[in-house]
């Protein structure tokens, strides 16, 4: 879980160009990390590549916070 979080955090920092300290489990992509809807779609695509998994549209729509992403990925591996 901690390792997953670190990998997710790195992608978010690179992709959204935000400060590491802001990337916490509770952070909302749109409200706290200033991502727009397309940013989130792209982020999910990158997570799929990083973790070599497919995230369905239905699941992707439920990913609103950093924690949502980390928990989903952890539950699949």
């Amino acid at each position, binding site marked *: 879980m901690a390792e997953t979080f670190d990998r997710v955090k790195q992608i978010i920092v690179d992709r959204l160009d935000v400060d590491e300290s802001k990337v916490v489990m509770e952070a909302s992509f749109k409200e706290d990390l200033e991502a727009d809807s*397309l940013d989130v*779609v*792209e982020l999910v*695509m990158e997570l799929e590549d990083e973790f070599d998994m497919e995230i369905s549209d239905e699941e992707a729509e439920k990913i609103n916070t950093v924690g949502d992403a980390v928990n989903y990925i952890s539950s699949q591996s």
Partner: protein
Amino acid sequence: MLNEQVALVTGASRGIGRAIALELARQGAKVAVNYAGSEDKAEAVVQEIIAGGGSAMKIQADVASEEDVKQMVKAVVDEFGRLDILVNNAGITKDNLLMRMKEEEFDSVINTNLKGVFLCTKGVTRQMMKQKYGRIINVASIVGVSGNPGQANYVAAKAGVIGMTKSNAKELAARNIQVNAVAPGYITTDMTDALTEEQREQMLALIPLKRLGEGEDVARVVRFLASEDAAYMTGQTLHVDGGMVM
């Protein structure tokens, strides 16, 4: 030139789509020739491209089927490694007077000509977003602008395509994906060969340039929209109709 670029042209086994596939190949693009039923004709287009020194593959898919479209896009990316240009050209007609038009005739034309554009665009967007580059060119029709009796289904679909072109252009612009459309007028294809001599004469009277168009007339404009020359254009519909609708 479109060297090293990969293009997917839907409905490319004949007519305007065939002309577009051949033109993009002449510019150096690797071309995926999509077809629904005419495998022999698609293979002939592929062979013509290869004979000219280009690269091409044929790929069967019904553009109105999301599953087919997904597999088609995957097959193209697996074969050629990327996907730079999508030309949404596949289309059918089921003309009938409004009073006589069956629900099935309406639905099937909307499914192929309008939903097909949505599904193919959605299908390639992921790859294009990853590349941070993409050109999508939708083949609409001048009747989508002007209307045409006996074509409620076709005109609704083509007007829909022109609207979707603008919406998708706005949505994807920030990702360096440009979306434009061409609106051909009367182009000589299997569709227009079915017209009577009298219908042709009536048509010519409406065309300031006094000739029917050729598939190549449309293909060259599509090539322009796919090229760097169109780098500052998105969301536009270019009329390729001999001046019929201004």
